[in-house]
């Protein structure tokens, strides 16, 4: 019996746009599902259904309007929907990793420094962090001549690989992926699929959005299907 790591219950989220006449945008309506250790849940549904909103809510990046998100981490069970900022920040250091669609970092910082950063923030010493920071860019076929350069001038796919390396360098019990393979070629998509499978094999609970059907079919163990009415059902993949 595998262990439940994330429990989402009755999650609702709407946005009020005060600058645009106070219009209300409904994004999530009563979403409930669970994620077990060692599984990969793919969020699936049409564009605008609320997949990214849901993923960002799981990371504490968006505040839900109601409902709960219980995460079972080594330190105990926390409801991210109600946790204070320091607790969310602590969870991000110890328990939850997130790979966003776009790389957003301080300009002019080298790729290796960026990849090592999550380890340094988690308290790993500088030498170990730098040594380990070389492994993932190599595996993701990022040419070594780019490692000491800042990624601002990189191609979209190269930037995304830097982002993926940052997300995977420090294994955590929960991994959230927002279209990690969107701008990658087939060879690198394959590496990312391997990385996700390895994470699952190490008991990581993965939640991701994969627009590319092929990747989704390879990694997902179940699907949360979000429809255009912003509610969802859980299906096996």
């Amino acid at each position, binding site marked *: 019996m595998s262990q439940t790591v994330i429990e989402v219950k009755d999650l609702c989220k709407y*946005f*009020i*746009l*005060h*600058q645009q006449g106070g219009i209300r945008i409904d994004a999530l309506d009563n979403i409930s599902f669970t994620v077990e250790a060692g599984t990969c849940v793919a969020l699936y549904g049409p564009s605008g259904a609320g997949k990214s909103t849901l993923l*960002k809510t799981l990371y*504490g*990046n*968006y*505040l839900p309007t109601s409902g709960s998100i219980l995460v079972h981490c080594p330190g105990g069970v926390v409801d991210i929907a109600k946790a204070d*900022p*320091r607790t*969310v*920040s*602590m969870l991000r*250091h110890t328990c939850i990793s997130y790979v966003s669609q776009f790389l*957003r*970092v*301080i*300009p*002019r*910082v080298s790729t290796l420094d960026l990849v090592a950063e999550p380890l*340094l*923030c*988690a*308290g790993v010493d500088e030498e170990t962090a730098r040594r380990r920071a070389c492994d993932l860019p190599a595996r993701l076929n990022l040419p070594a001549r780019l490692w000491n350069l800042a990624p601002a001038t990189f191609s979209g796919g190269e930037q995304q690989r830097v982002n993926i390396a940052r997300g995977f360098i420090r294994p955590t019990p929960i991994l959230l992926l927002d279209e990690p393979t969107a701008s990658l070629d087939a060879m690198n998509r394959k590496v990312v699929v391997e990385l996700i499978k390895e994470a699952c094999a190490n008991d990581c609970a993965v939640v991701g959005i994969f627009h590319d059907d092929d990747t989704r079919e390879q990694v997902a163990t179940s699907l949360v299907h979000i429809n255009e009415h912003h509610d969802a059902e859980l299906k096996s993949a």
Partner: protein
Amino acid sequence: MNMLNSSTPLLKARNLTKRYGEHIGCQNVNLDLWPGEVLGIVGESGSGKSTLLNMLSGRLTPTCGQVLYRRDPSSQLLNAHHTQTTETGNETGTHDPDAGLEIDLHTLSEGERRRLLRTELGFVHQNPRDGLRMRVSAGANIGERLMARGDRHYGHLRTTALEWLDKVELSQARIDDAPASYSGGMQQRLQIARNLVTSPRLVYMDEPTGGLDVSVQARLLDLIRRLVRDMGLAVILVTHDLAVARLLSHRLMVMYHGNVVEEGLTDQVLDDPHHAYTQLLVSSILQG
């Protein structure tokens, strides 16, 4: 990280209010800041950011409210005639000798406050000329806080100054030059070195990258972030630049007309703003 294990805040503000006659500078501000944490304060000019920062650093007396700083337990400064102050007046359970004594910055004498600002606290001004002594050498600027702490060995002072010039990426060959001959970006880095040389626990920064061109700004941001991480510094950062706030601060407070209208994790406040003013602020960012 140590900032997350630490259960007692380093600095607390309670109902902090400043009125200028009828006009409100800022009102009813409450905050807790933990060791190693960077708190950003954003808002348009006139929103009360600088008033708040000046009160939090003890430089401006509030109309009412308290600023409670938990001093370094290993420090020999500020001898114990200050009784512990607590938020509710008579609470006694919070005094932990290992966590250090809690003092109200605004009940200290001027001398004690200045001493604290030269040792455990630091203040980085927007205009480096306000934080540097322009006529003495760069080395002397860095050494001043060490001397205030009682360091008198010239060789040691000079070695430390050279090390810090290097840390903030200034040429060691310029140690004897007066800051007046430095560029704006170099002066700002010198001001940071001058503040950090005594390993303070909390540094106040008022628009530290304001007035610098973007290439210098990027380098300074990276430098500040590294120093904060490596030294476990707590920082209160006032800026009107949301991009700077996003890259440097862990938590964010948004001020509007003297009030804190929204606060939370930096990326949450900027990506999912709830208050009408924060939404206006975020929607006004230029996409470069």
